C-alpha cells in the first residue's frame, strides 16, 4: 500500500473477495521526506501515514517493511548504471520485477501468504493465466508488469484491471478512503525534485564530451553523455543550427567515447530491434516469426510487427517505423490485449 488511492482500493476489493489481507507499506528510502510535493515521490512519511489510515478504514492489519537496501541495490544503482552505459532504463519495471514481485513476494510466501495484491491497472486472464491490458487504456500498466515471469504472475492479484480510474476514485470515496482524491504519482519516485539530470550528475560526476553529427563534426559539448536520451531535442545547446534549419535530435549515446550523436528526425526511425533477456508469459518462445503488436515505452504507441527468438535474443521487425527507440527500455509484445512476452531493447536501427 503506497498511500495512494489505487493500492487502497485494491486492498479493499481483495478483502471483499474473501481473502485474508494484510497491508504492507514499503519503506524504500532510508531517509524519507516528511511531506509529498505534488505528484512526486511515493515513500514520504505522509504516504506511510495515508497507507496506515487506509488500512484502518478497511480494517486490516498493517505493517511497514523496510526494503530500502534492496531498492537501492536493485533499482537505484541499476538505474544509474544503465544511464552510465548509455541506455535509458525504466525503474518502475525494475521495481516490479525485483522488489514487489521478488523481495516482497518471496518474503510473503515464506511467511505463509499466497499472493501479492497491488493497485496496478492490468488483468490476469482467468483461463490462460496470461497478463492482459487493463480496460482503462489511459491507465493500463501491463507494460511495466510485462517483465514478470509466469510464476510471479501466478502469485499476483490486480483487482483494478477491470475498472476505469475515475470509477476507482468514486469507489474509494464511497468506501470512506481519505486518499480518494490524492493526485496520481508520476516521474521517478526516488528523485524527489524531478531533476533526473541533476540526480545522475550527483551520482556519476561530470564527464565533459562532444556532441557530433553523423559525419563526426563536433557541434557542441556536454557535461556527461549519461544526461541524454535517444530522441531528445531540448537542452542540446548546439553552437550552430543545422544547414537545413530543421531541429536536431539525439540519435545515439556512446558511453565509451562519451559521445552524443545528433541528427534530423528522419534518422530516428527504427524498424529493426534486438532485445535481450526475453520473458514469455502469453505464449511459448516463438522460434519462427509471429505477428504481434509491439510497445516500446510506457504509455507509448503500439506498432505492428513480427518477432522471433534467435538464441538468447529477441528479434523484432516493425511493419511501420517507430521513432526514437531507446536501448534499456522494454519491448513488450501483445496479441490483442494479451501480453505475449517482453525483453530489454539492446539495439534499435
Amino acid at each position, binding site marked *: 500500500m503506497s498511500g495512494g488511492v489505487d493500492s487502497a482500493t485494491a486492498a479493499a476489493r481483495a478483502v471483499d473477495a474473501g481473502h485474508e489481507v494484510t497491508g504492507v507499506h514499503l519503506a524504500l528510502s532510508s531517509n524519507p521526506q516528511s511531506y509529498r510535493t505534488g505528484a512526486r515521490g511515493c515513500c514520504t512519511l505522509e504516504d*506511510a501515514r495515508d497507507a496506515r489510515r487506509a488500512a484502518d478504514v478497511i480494517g486490516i492489519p498493517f505493517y511497514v517493511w523496510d526494503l530500502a537496501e534492496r531498492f537501492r541495490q536493485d533499482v537505484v544503482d541499476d538505474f544509474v548504471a544503465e544511464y552510465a552505459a548509455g541506455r535509458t532504463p525504466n525503474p518502475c519495471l525494475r521495481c516490479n520485477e525485483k522488489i514487489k514481485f521478488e523481495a516482497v513476494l518471496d518474503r510473503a510466501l515464506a511467511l*505463509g501468504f499466497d499472493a501479492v495484491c497491488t493497485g496496478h491497472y492490468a488483468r490476469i486472464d482467468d483461463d490462460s493465466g496470461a497478463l492482459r491490458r487493463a480496460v482503462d487504456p489511459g491507465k493500463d500498466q501491463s507494460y511495466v508488469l510485462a517483465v514478470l515471469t509466469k510464476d510471479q504472475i501466478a502469485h499476483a492479484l490486480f483487482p483494478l484491471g477491470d475498472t476505469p480510474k475515475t470509477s476507482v476514485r468514486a469507489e474509494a470515496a464511497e468506501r470512506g478512503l481519505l486518499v480518494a482524491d490524492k493526485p496520481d504519482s508520476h516521474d521517478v519516485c526516488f528523485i524527489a525534485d524531478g531533476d533526473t539530470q541533476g540526480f545522475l550528475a550527483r551520482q556519476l560526476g561530470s564527464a565533459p564530451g562532444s556532441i557530433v553529427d553523423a559525419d563526426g563534426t563536433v557541434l557542441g559539448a556536454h557535461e556527461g553523455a549519461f544526461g541524454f536520451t535517444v530522441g531528445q531535442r531540448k537542452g542540446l545547446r548546439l553552437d550552430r543550427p543545422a544547414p537545413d534549419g530543421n531541429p536536431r535530435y539525439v540519435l545515439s549515446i556512446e558511453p565509451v567515447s562519451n559521445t552524443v550523436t545528433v541528427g534530423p528526425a528522419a534518422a530516428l526511425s527504427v524498424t529493426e530491434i534486438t532485445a535481450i533477456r526475453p520473458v514469455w508469459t502469453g505464449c511459448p518462445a516463438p522460434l519462427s516469426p509471429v505477428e504481434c503488436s509491439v510497445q516500446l515505452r510506457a504509455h507509448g504507441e503500439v506498432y505492428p510487427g513480427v518477432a522471433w527468438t534467435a538464441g538468447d535474443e529477441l528479434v523484432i521487425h516493425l511493419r511501420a517505423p517507430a521513432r526514437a527507440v531507446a536501448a534499456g527500455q522494454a519491448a513488450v509484445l501483445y496479441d490483442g490485449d494479451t501480453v505475449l512476452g517482453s525483453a530489454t531493447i539492446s539495439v534499435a536501427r
Partner: protein
Amino acid sequence: MLPESIAAMTEELAQLGNPSSLHNAGRRARRVVEESREQIAEVFGARASEVIFTSGGTEADNLAVKGMFWARRADDPRRVRVLTTSVEHHAVLDSVHWLAAAEGASPQWLPVDDCGLVHADALRAALADGAHGADGAALVSVMWANNEVGAVQPVVALAAVAHEFGVPFHTDAVQAAAQLPVDFAASGVDAMTVTAHKLGGPVGVGALILGRAVAPVPVLHGGGQERDVRSGTLDAPAIRAFAVAAVMSAQRREAEAVRVAALRDDLVRQVLLAVPDAVLNGPPPGPGRLPGNAHFSFPGCEGDALLLLLDARGIACSTGSACTAGVAEPSHVLLAMGADEARARGSLRFSLGHTTTQADVDALGACIGEAVTRARRAAGSAAR
C-alpha cells in the same frame, strides 16, 4: 485500565470545576486533586508536597533531566556533565542528546554489562574522573528498571554514590512502579518519574516525585500550578483515576508479582522448549528482573516478521521501537548490551500484566515454534 480507575475517572469527568479556581466548584476539584496527591505520595513513600503532576512519564523525565541540568549549571557553570546509561528510555536518552546538541552538555554514558546492569563502581569511577571531576557533574539519571530487558538497576547504591559526590540523582521508575516495591524516601533518590498507565490508570497523567530541596528550572511556563515547577491546568479526573490505580496496584502488587513471575517463568520455559536456540536477554528470572518481562533473541529471524505472525494469532508483542515511518528498528538497549545488529533485530519482548492468564502463555507456547520456522524461511528469502 483497572475497572475501578475507569469508574473513578468517568465519575469525575462529569464534575465541574478547575482545581485552581477559588469558588466552591474549584475547591471541590482541588480537594480531589489533593487527596489523590496524598494517596499517590503514600504509595511511593513520598510526602504529598513532593508529588508534581505531569502529563506522563515523558514530561516528567524531560523536566527532571533538562530542569535539573539548567538549575545546577546556573549555580555553577562548570556543571555540564550528565551521567546516564545508553539503556534509558528515549524520554531520558533524547533529552540528554538534546542537552548535548543545544545546551553544551557533556553526556557520559555509564557502561552496562551483558545483562543490561549498571554497576555502582562504574558510577564512582566516572564521578571521580573527567573534567572537573564531580564538580563538573550536573546530575545522574539511571532508570529503576529497564523497560525492554527487565533489568532492575541497583538504584539505592547508585544514588548513594552520587550523593557521596554531592550530585543529585534522578530515576525513571515508570516500569518499576507497578511491579517492584518503590519507596522514594528509602531509596534516597532526589527525583523519580512515575506514570499512571503502567499501574492500570489512564494514559496522559504521571508525576515527577521531587525532593523538596530540588528546584529544577521549568520546561513548561505558565500558571505555575505545581510548585511553580510545572504549569498547566490540573486534570482532576485523570489524577483521581491515577490515585485509584496506584492504591490498588500497591495493594495487589506482592501477590500479583508472584502470580505474574510464575506465568513468566512458564512462558520462558515454553518458548525455550519450542525454540531451543532462542536466547533469554537480560538478567536471569529472580529479584534482578521485572516479574512481568521476558525478552528473547531468535537467531535467524527478523523480529518484525515474528511480530506479524504472532499478531495474526492474537498475540501482541514488541520489537522495541519503530522509526517515524513505522519501520522496526533494532533495540538500542540490546545494542548497548553488546548484541550485534542481527541479534538485536531478531528480538522480541513479551510483557505480562494483570490481565495475563495461563491460557495466554499456552497460546504463545503453541505457536511460537511454527512462527520462528516461518520467520527463518522469510529471512532466508531476503538473504538471497
